[in-house]
């Protein structure tokens, strides 16, 4: 890994907490019928966020919200252009048919991961709706994809990178090479 020349914390733990709470309220506002909503995180990164978001949303709706995790690596369109990505287990403890699936990812960038995720989701059934929640939208889309719920919009240069850390210490860092 290259050593970044400069790194700036753009979201600290408190800001991440506030962003997730706001996203949860927006999801609740958008989806009146809470029983049909499931969260699906995209690993690595999105699965942890999906679980966090699920906890907040359960508090708002006063019932538990199902959370799954969807590996998208086998559906990527750039598999022969890069080293094979790490594949993660997919855990879908519910039937997605007829559900409103909220895909959860940490960073929305070129949009190809989201496309792969929608493709991967198809293997499990036909959701009624698919919505997209991301903690950070950094721009540079290569596909006509837009997030429904965004924690923070961060305009970036192509050579910058966003590192999201959720766990012992929550933070989002912008790194300049």
């Amino acid at each position, binding site marked *: 890994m290259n050593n970044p020349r400069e790194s700036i914390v753009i979201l600290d733990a408190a800001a991440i907490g506030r962003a997730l709470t706001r996203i949860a309220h927006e999801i609740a506002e958008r989806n009146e019928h809470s029983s049909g909503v499931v969260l699906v995180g995209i690993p690595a990164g999105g699965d942890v966020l999906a679980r966090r978001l699920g906890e907040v949303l359960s508090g708002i709706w006063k019932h538990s919200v199902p959370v799954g995790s969807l*590996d998208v*690596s*086998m*559906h*990527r369109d*750039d*598999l*022969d*252009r*890069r*080293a*094979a*990505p*790490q*594949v*993660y*287990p*997919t855990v879908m403890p519910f039937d997605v048919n007829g559900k409103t699936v909220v895909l959860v990812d940490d*960073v*929305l*960038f*070129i949009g*190809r*991961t989201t496309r792969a995720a929608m*493709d991967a989701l198809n*293997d*499990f059934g036909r959701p009624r709706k698919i919505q997209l929640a991301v903690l950070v939208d*950094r721009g540079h889309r290569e596909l006509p994809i837009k997030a429904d719920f965004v924690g923070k919009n961060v305009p970036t240069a192509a050579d910058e*990178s*966003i590192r999201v850390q959720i766990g012992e210490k929550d933070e989002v860092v912008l790194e300049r090479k």
Partner: protein
Amino acid sequence: MSWNKKHLLDAESLSAEEILTVLDTARAFKAVGERAIKKVPALRGKTVVNLFVEPSTRTRISFELAEQRLSADIINFSAEASSFKKGETLKDTALNLQALNADFIVIRHSASGAPHFLSRVVGARIINAGDGAHEHPTQALLDAFTIRERKGKIEGLKVTILGDILYSRVARSNIWALTRLGASVTLCGPSTLVPKTFEKMGCRVTYNVEEALRDADIIHLLRIQHERQRKTMFPGIGEYTQLFGLNKARLAKTKPDALIMHPGPINRGVEIDSEIADCDRSLILEQVTNGLAVRMAVLFLLNGGKGPQEVA
């Protein structure tokens, strides 16, 4: 995660990290095999040639299904119905496949080193599906996967490989892979089929079957390969069964949690008692299931391009 290889030619040249990358990747593919839709588009648009110059049933079927589940286009080539019968050399066959822009060639050949040769003459990615008595790397990887899944680890385990070692590519690949992952491997069988020279590969050779089985965590049985033996290497099958076959009396003296493996095809009543082959300590059919996941993982990893690059 570490994978930069273009071909899978042998287990000998794989690092512990590379082996673990395959095993971790295979775990996710095994889960894919349990879904309602077992197919993923990872190899969509890629052409895979299964070049089985030596007959094979289970390995060929396993590779074919792995390729189909990855959405690849498949061409099957077998020794009986191909241009080899008409006198074409392996090189010319390979160049013809190259002219058709094959992306992968999975090769089974009776000559050791045939996959290595192929990797030098064509641009396709080569997977060794067994070359002579040399190597059978995907078998070793699926065996390692099965052991790790059942025992939780490989390092520190005692693995005894019992049977026809001399003619076994499975044995050679397993010795390389398992010792690299930190297992201690013991070989046992008739002295004519288990030469002491194998100790150079980092394992132990013994001719005392009771001693070989006593402490083993994994008992890996091999078939007597009549088709590879040019002369009789031991007096007879009956004597082999009596001296080295895994029967109830021998199994009773092993560790109660020792597990039994066999790459197949098994010869019931020769190297293994029929009842033992079907008992709950036998992993023989799990090996078949895992073989599919491991072969999908190998194809998936080899399909990757050069160097890691940032994606989001």
